[in-house]
C-alpha cells in the first residue's frame, strides 16, 4: 500500500465515519434520554434520501402519506388518553401539536413536488418531512410503554424498523436511488491527491453539528434538561423536568439528524429502502464504543469504524463487515470488565 492509497482510504473512511458519527449522536441521544435503542433511526435517514430522490424524478414522495397517517394515529392516541384522564379541555392544544404541526412539512413537501422548484428547497423539505417521524412514532409506540424494560423497548424498536423498511419497500420499490451531488467542487491537495466537495461537506456537517450539540447541551435549558433526564429520570422528574417532553425533544433532534444524514449521503451512495439498517448498525457499534452514554467517545468510535471499514474493504472486501463488527468484541469485553456493577445499581434506582 502506498501513501496516496492510504490517504484516499482515510478520506473515504472519514467521510463514512462522519455519517456514523451523526447517526451515533442520534442513537446516544435517544438512548440516554429514553433507554430506547432506536433501531429505525437509519430507516428515517433512508426515507429522507429516497424522498429527495422522488422530488428529483418529479414524483410526490409517498413519505407525505406516511407522516400524515402517523400524525392521525398520534392524534387519536393523544385524544384517547386525554379523554381517559378527563382532560378534554386540552384537546385543542393536542390537535395543534399532533395534527397541525406535522401537517406543515407534509403540505410543504406537496407544494415542493411541483416542477420548477430549486434543489435547495427540495433538500430542506426532504429533511423537514422526516423530522416528525420519530416523535410521532414515539407518541404512538414508545410513550405508552416508557417504563418497560430496556429489552422490551429494544424489541419494539426492532419491530418498528421492520415496519418502516416494509413501508419503504412498498413506497419506493426494491431498487435504489442516487441524487445529484450537492456540490461538484473538487479540492486538490499536493500532487494529484483530490478530495471531493461532497466529502468535505459531510465531514464539515459532522463537525458543525457536533459543535452545535455541545453548545446546546452546555448552554441551553433544554439541553440541560436532556442531560438531567439522561443522568437520572426520577431525579429529573423531582426537579420539575417532564420526561415525556424531553423524550419528544430528543426524538425530534434525532429525526432531524437522520434527515440531514439522508440528504448528505444520498449523492455518494445508492440508497435502498433498507440501507438505513446498515448505517444504523455501524453507528450502533460506534455508540457501543461510547457505552451508549458518552458523546465524545461515540464520535471517536464512529471515525474509527469508518476508517477501519475503509481499510478492511481494501484488504478483504468480502470480510469487510466481519472486521467492522468484530470491533465490538474487544470493546464489549473491556466495557463489561469496567462497568458491570454500576449498571446494576442504576437499574435498582430506576425501579
Amino acid at each position, binding site marked *: 500500500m*502506498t501513501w496516496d*492509497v492510504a490517504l*484516499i*482510504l482515510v478520506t*473515504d473512511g472519514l467521510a*463514512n465515519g462522519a455519517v456514523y458519527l451523526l447517526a451515533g449522536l442520534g442513537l446516544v441521544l435517544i438512548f440516554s434520554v429514553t433507554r430506547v435503542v432506536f433501531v429505525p433511526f437509519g430507516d428515517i435517514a433512508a426515507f429522507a434520501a429516497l424522498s429527495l430522490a422522488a422530488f428529483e424524478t418529479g414524483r410526490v414522495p409517498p413519505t407525505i402519506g406516511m407522516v400524515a397517517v402517523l400524525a392521525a394515529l398520534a392524534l387519536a392516541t393523544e385524544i384517547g388518553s386525554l379523554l381517559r384522564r378527563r382532560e378534554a379541555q386540552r384537546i385543542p392544544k393536542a390537535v395543534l401539536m399532533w395534527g397541525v404541526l406535522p401537517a406543515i412539512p407534509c403540505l410543504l413537501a406537496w407544494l415542493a413536488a411541483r416542477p420548477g422548484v430549486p434543489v435547495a428547497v427540495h433538500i430542506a423539505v426532504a429533511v423537514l418531512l422526516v423530522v416528525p417521524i420519530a416523535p410521532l412514532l414515539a407518541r404512538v409506540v414508545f410513550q405508552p410503554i416508557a417504563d418497560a424494560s430496556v429489552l422490551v423497548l429494544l424489541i419494539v424498536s426492532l*419491530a*418498528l424498523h*421492520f*415496519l418502516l*423498511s*416494509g*413501508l419503504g*419497500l*412498498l413506497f419506493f*420499490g*426494491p*431498487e*435504489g*436511488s*442516487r441524487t445529484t451531488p450537492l456540490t461538484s467542487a473538487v479540492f486538490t491537495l499536493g500532487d494529484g491527491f483530490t478530495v*471531493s466537495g461532497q466529502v468535505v461537506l459531510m465531514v464539515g456537517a459532522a463537525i458543525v453539528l457536533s459543535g452545535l450539540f455541545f453548545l446546546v447541551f452546555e448552554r441551553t435549558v433544554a439541553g440541560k434538561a436532556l442531560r438531567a433526564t439522561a443522568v437520572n429520570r426520577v431525579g429529573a422528574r423531582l426537579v420539575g423536568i417532564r420526561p415525556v417532553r424531553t423524550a419528544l425533544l430528543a426524538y425530534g433532534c434525532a429525526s432531524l439528524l437522520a434527515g440531514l444524514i439522508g440528504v448528505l*449521503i444520498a449523492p*455518494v*451512495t*445508492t440508497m*435502498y429502502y*433498507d*440501507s438505513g439498517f*446498515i*448505517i444504523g448498525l455501524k453507528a450502533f457499534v460506534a455508540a457501543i464504543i461510547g457505552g451508549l452514554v458518552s458523546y465524545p467517545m461515540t464520535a471517536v468510535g464512529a471515525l474509527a469504524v469508518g476508517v477501519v471499514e*475503509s*481499510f*478492511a*474493504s*481494501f*484488504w478483504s*472486501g*468480502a470480510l*469487510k*463487515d466481519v472486521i467492522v463488527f468484530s470491533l465490538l468484541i474487544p470493546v464489549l469485553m473491556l466495557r463489561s470488565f469496567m462497568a458491570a456493577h454500576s449498571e446494576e445499581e442504576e437499574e435498582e434506582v430506576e425501579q
Partner: protein
Amino acid sequence: MKSLMQTLTRGALAAALTACGVASAFAADLKVGLSVSLSGPNSSLGVPYAKGMQAALAYKPEVNGRKVQLIVLDDGSDPTTAGRNARKLIEEDKVDVLMGTSGVPAAIAMAQVGKEAKVPMIGLTPILLDPAENPWVVTVAQPTQLMIDAVVERMKRNNVKTVGYIGFTDAWGDLVYNALMKAAPEAGIKVVSNERYARADASVTGQVLKIVALRPDAVMTGGAGTPGALPFLALQERGYKGGVYGQHGLINPDFVRVVGAAGQNALMPTGPVIVAEQLPDSHPTKKIATDFRAVFQKVNNAPTSDAFSAYSFDGWLVFADAASRAMKKAEPGTAEFRVALRDAIFSTREVVGTHGVYTFKPGSLYGVDERARVIVKLDNGQWKLAP
C-alpha cells in the same frame, strides 16, 4: 409487520392477476401453473415475469383450438412458498405444466416438486440442477457461461490481456467469476483480481483502489440491478480509463438510472429482445420480439423495458409448441398427457422465441445457442447493439 405489508400487496396483486386468469378460464382444456415473486426482494423481477406471462396469454390464448388457463400464485420470493405453490398447483388445480420463478433457489424447489409429481416444468431462470437427475425440467434462460463467453470473446477482440474482477459476495458473484475463470484462460486473458462487495455496501472505494493499482486492461463486474452500479461509479471516480464490462444481471432500467454517466460505453451481454428494433432483419428472433413488444404494450398499457417479461413469453411459446404435439398423443389433464408433454418439450426443435431459438434435448436444462445473446453498449442511457 413487514410480512403483513407483504401479505397485503401479495393479496392485491394475486387477486388482480388471478382475476385475469379466471376471465380467460371458461372451457379451459390446458392448464398452466405459474408461481412467481409478486412480493418480497425478488419482486422487481417477479412482477415483469407475471406481466410477460399475461402478454403471452393474450398472444397465444389457445393451442390447437383448445383454450389455455393460466393460474398465477405469488411465492413472496421465498423458496418454501414456491415449493408449496407448486404442490398446490399440481394437486388442487391439476396443472399440465409448471412455470416459474424469479429466484433460482425457488425455481429449484418447484422443480423438485414437479419431479416428484411427474409434472413437467419450464423454468424462467438459469436453474442450477443436475439434468440427469431431473428429467422433468428445462429452462428458457441463457446459461451464465454462454453469456460470459460472449463477454470474453469481446474482450479478446478489444485486445484485453488482463482483467480485474469485482462482484457480489453472493452466489451471483461466484457464478460470474467462475464463468469468467473458465472462459478467460482459453482466450489468453489473465484475471488479476477477485474483489467482492455486498449488495448493501455504501462504497467500494477500497476494492476499486486495489484494482486500479493493478492496472488491468479492463474490469469485469459481477453485480446485478442497482447495487451493480457501484463499481462503475467508483471506477469513474478513480479516473479508470480501461473498458468496463458487465453481464446480463445489469440489464435493468433502474441500473441505467443509478449508474448515470459512469456507465457510458459499458459493454454487456443480453438476449436480443432488448435491442429488437436495432437487430438486422435477418436476425431470427427479430420478428417475434417485435410482436412481443406490441402485444405487451397492448396488454399492460406500458412498453417493455426489461428482459424478464420476455422469458415468460418464451416459456409460453415453448409450452404451446410442445402441447400442440403432445395433444396428438393424449388428452390434457391426464397423467399420460403430462408424460407426452414432457417428451414433447424435450424434443423441441428450433422454436423461435424473443431471447433465442430453442432446441431442447434430454439430459440438458438449457436449449439456446449463440443466437440467444448479443453484446449491447450503454450509450447515453440507451442500450445500443454493439455488433
